[in-house]
């Protein structure tokens, strides 16, 4: 109810304060409906989603590899370096990546993976650091060796949190996709579409497309949350029953 009121107030303020340059909500809604019915949008969304999912898959595999290996001293420093890579900007590395990749498709994917992995690794390392020491102690008392402990506590025990990291960092991937798609526009994608609309100052369609991007993001957030609860039912349990 409160959210509905907040949305109405925002729309009213938007309606009142928008002038000739900023399109009014009604016009954006009209453009949004028009976009939803167009094949152009669907094709571009599919291109972007496919690239995002591919990048997330590669990123999570690389993250898991380095995060699991980070329990070994040699890989710990590498994982920590990856964490620091969050402060690197992609813009300054585009030329190097262009030299290293074969085509535009590979360039976009590698840039996206390079941009996502440091955030994934940061989140997952924080999960590992915050593991309750009793989880390791219980493994030891059950007679587990190091590998069995790693499997039980970090791989199996934190599988639900990998999903949560995926959910939380989907926003970062989704944010980056519009940027990297601008680098190679021949394959299309919502980033390409957004750049085209921006180029012609078509602010109505830019806002409508932003709305689409926003809603897809929310849908994925909900979807990943639901899948997590379905795959790992214990992740939604909060309170114990009375005896």
């Amino acid at each position: 109810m409160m959210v509905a009121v907040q949305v109405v107030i925002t729309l009213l303020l938007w309606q009142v304060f928008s002038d000739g340059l900023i399109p009014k909500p009604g016009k954006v809604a009209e453009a949004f409906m028009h976009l939803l019915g167009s094949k152009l949008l669907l094709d571009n969304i599919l291109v972007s989603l496919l690239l995002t999912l591919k990048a997330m898959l590669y990123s999570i595999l690389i993250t898991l590899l380095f995060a699991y290996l980070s329990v070994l001293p040699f890989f710990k420093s590498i994982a920590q370096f990856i964490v620091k890579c969050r402060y690197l900007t992609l813009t300054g590395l585009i030329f190097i990546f262009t030299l290293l990749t074969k085509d535009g498709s590979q360039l976009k994917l590698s840039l996206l993976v390079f941009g996502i992995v440091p955030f994934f690794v940061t989140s997952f390392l924080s999960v590992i650091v915050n593991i309750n020491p009793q989880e390791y102690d219980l493994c030891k008392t059950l007679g587990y060796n190091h590998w069995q402990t790693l499997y039980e506590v970090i791989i199996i025990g934190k599988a639900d949190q990998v999903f949560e990291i995926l959910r939380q960092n989907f926003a970062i991937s989704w944010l980056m996709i519009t940027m990297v798609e601008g680098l190679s526009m021949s394959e299309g994608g919502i980033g390409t579409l957004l750049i085209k609309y921006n180029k012609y100052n078509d602010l109505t369609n830019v806002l409508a497309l932003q709305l689409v991007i926003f809603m897809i993001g929310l849908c994925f957030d909900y979807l990943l949350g639901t899948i997590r609860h379905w795959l790992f039912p214990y992740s939604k349990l909060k309170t114990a029953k009375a005896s």
Partner: protein
Amino acid sequence: MTKHTKGEVVLQVTNVALTYDRPILRDINFCIKNIVRPGLSQGQVVTLIGRSGIGKTQLFKILSGLQSPTAGQVTIHNNKPVKAGDMGVIFQNYYLFEWRTVYQSLLLAAKKNKALFGMEKQTIEQYAEQFHLTGHLQLYPKQLSGGQRQRVSIMQQLLKGSDFILLDEPFSGLDVCMLDKAVELLLQVSLSDELKTLIIVSHDIETSVAISDTVFILGNEPDKAGATIKKEIDLIERDLAWQKDIKQEKRFLETISEIKNEL
């Protein structure tokens, strides 16, 4: 005095010391012997009593093999140095893997017990019935009450098959009703096998003494840094062990006073 004999040493603690930036434990020496009672599978129940912050948890970790002492050693059967996994350990908050159902947790423990090979499922079902947990096997730890978690923890360590079970503050946070059930459960475990040895680390003097056969008092001595075993009380000699409703007896209350004076 109840008829019994004391046999071989099942656990020996020799000159154990632990020092961080200051001495925590020093000169810890005690042993637990196998108690034999005619016609019964009588296990041992030993309590380590001490004030809060005296170093009980550190001694608990050393006994369980989870922590190495700065000096000395803990040995079990035939002078074998204890290592993590030799002892069944029940943590204060009955920690269980939150991502495993009760059944999965018990199965993990049962699979570590070679004596149960091929009979894990049946054994779990038997234990679950005995511990009134049959209907809870498919639940996750978060869905269990404190008492149920405690029973699952105990079952898990029993299924693992260790002769020794170490319990860290098993009575803390339990209400009166649950306390009685916990005591009954521990007595049941102690009678399950001749070599079963329960080592209770607690500051709940009345409850732990009431179910024990031996009490070790951990405390500080004047002008000496670090806690040590100040006194050993053989409750069997005093005819205080294995007696129901012993808490009401005058001699029990006198022993409690004696322990409190030592702390």
